[in-house]
């Protein structure tokens, strides 16, 4: 959602999303296919920590077949959409929204994939540049704010005029 809202895409077929079915775990394998179909392009798989953990076994495929996909994990240590719905619609009853993840640097290292981490704004650019400089697959672990929501939001069953926005909420 963040990617679709803020990136500013300029070319057809440059943003692939499992929008209809909303399949988690789509990005890494789909990026794999896109990279093989369009070797002239730099391909990024941008995913949450939840989606990534659903199909992260394909890291081995990236290495075995030398597929130069760059992976950006937006790690909020949460199932972010679930947490957002629970916050707004289910009165803050955060059941099963906390998500334990591995140390992604060590995980990538175990597969032989160069990995970089960014936890502060100033670390973002160097991490992305470092990943872009890698000849082959690379991974960037973005530790993002845990309570970042997607706004505006239209609750299910409501109309387009009933958008919710709560930009100035306190963190945690």
């Amino acid at each position, binding site marked *: 959602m963040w990617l679709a809202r803020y990136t500013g895409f300029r070319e057809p077929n440059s943003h692939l999303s499992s929008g209809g079915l909303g399949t988690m775990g789509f990005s890494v394998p789909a990026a794999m296919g896109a990279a093989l179909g369009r070797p002239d392009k730099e391909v990024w798989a941008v995913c949450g920590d939840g989606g990534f953990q659903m199909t992260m076994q394909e890291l081995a495929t990236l290495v075995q077949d030398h597929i130069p996909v760059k992976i950006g994990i937006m790690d909020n240590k949460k199932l972010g959409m679930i947490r957002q719905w629970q916050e707004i619609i289910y009165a803050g009853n955060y059941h099963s929204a906390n998500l334990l993840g591995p140390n992604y640097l060590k995980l990538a290292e175990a597969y032989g994939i160069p990995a970089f981490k960014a936890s502060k704004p100033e670390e973002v650019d160097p991490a992305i540049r470092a990943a872009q400089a890698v000849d082959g697959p690379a991974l960037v672990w973005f530790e993002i704010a845990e309570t*970042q929501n997607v706004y505006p939001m239209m609750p299910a069953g409501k109309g387009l005029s009933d958008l919710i926005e709560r930009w100035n909420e306190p963190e945690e």
Partner: protein
Amino acid sequence: MTKTTETTTTAGSAAGRASPSTDGDSGRAAGDRSERATAAAGQVRRSHVPGDGTAHAAAVERARREMLSEARPRRRTRIGADVVCEALIRQGVDVLFGYPGGVILPIYDVLGDYPELRHVLVRHEQGAAHAADGYARATGRVGVCLGTSGPGATNLVTGIATALLDSVPIVAITGNVPAALIGKDAFQEIDITGITLPMTKHNYLVRNADDLPRVFAEAFYIARTGRPGPVHIDITKDALQQETSAPHPSEEEVIAGLPGFRPTFDGHPRQLRLAAAEIARARRPVILAGHGILIANASAELVEFAEKTQIPVAHTLLGVGAIDERHPLSYGYMGMHGWKHVNRAIQSADLLIALGMRFDDRVTGNVRTYAPHARIIHVDIDPSEIGKNVAVEVPIVGDVKRVLRALIPLVEPGDPGRVLRRTRRVAPRIRERELARLGGMAGRLSVGRLRRLADRRADEPRGDLRRRRRPAPDVAGPLHGLP
């Protein structure tokens, strides 16, 4: 020299396994070796083969070679698995994603004979289906994935369903147990065509190798023609192993054999005139661009249409990229998580021109309160989408590229700045304000900062996808069969 070394080294392993059976042989071999080593002093590498150069060693080597050539005969008959590979090559497939298993092994046994086909071994069949999907979305060509029966097939299901809901052309191939065992709960048997029936555009169960050429030609044609979608081919193991001389049909033969599958490509002229009249009357129109624009390769036509009429373009989640988001008429992303100004414009519009989108509930919200003042023109290649979620005033069934080409001459040039002037000026301000808010979350890393990745990439020169697309060989036409 090099050749000799290779021969003697490989022969050594075979002879070495046999030699410990008799002490006498070993002793003699050791003696021979030392003699030979002396004779060959000064050579780059000494042989490790016991008794190398003797008649015995040569006989062992000969037998070993014969055994290997029996395992993979140079000349063999054409079986169903060959038909599968031939068909994939004829369709212009260069890469397929798969995972081997018992009943699909006949394909893997011959795959090495077709170096044109690159097989990517995934770690889970879901990854294979998504990779085929990503390949198809990025290239516009049909993606191919491969799995075995039972768990291999069921693991593909999520990926096939994803492709169906997003209209992505993929062909999913699975093996199944031999025809005689179907229905006996054989090992790894599952009724996968029963499972994929509601989540594919079409599916096949092939029990006879002679059917494979026709089925594959039909499957690729159906997957990419009209509204694209996934097609599943389930093949019994015995069909993969049967000999066959069945020829591959031409595209004309395939079309002639599918009399019930005739998508409408050109919009009805009367509907086009009605649409032009609606557009001429509208005061607050909005274009809703969907995935159909990308599938039909109609971005240029969309921009031309919008520029001529001066109507702003909102896009769906899957319509991202239909228009350059920096184009002055690009309005932005609509729907549940869309931009507020976009949704407001839709709610106050008096005409919605929906191009290759399907009024998903994530786009409309509550349909009863959706765009209450708007009349709707709906262009879609799939007639079942018309009137499914919203009632429309002007339905146009056709390929959105051809419809726009036909519509552009019929519409009057719009007055630049007349339509939605106020909101168009507001849009960039709303965007910037929101991004500033995103960046300011207590100094923590936030999504607004990550947008810099996109900013850098936006400076790259733009390329024309159509020109870069590799020409599709043989019967594989571009999507929708358009030139």
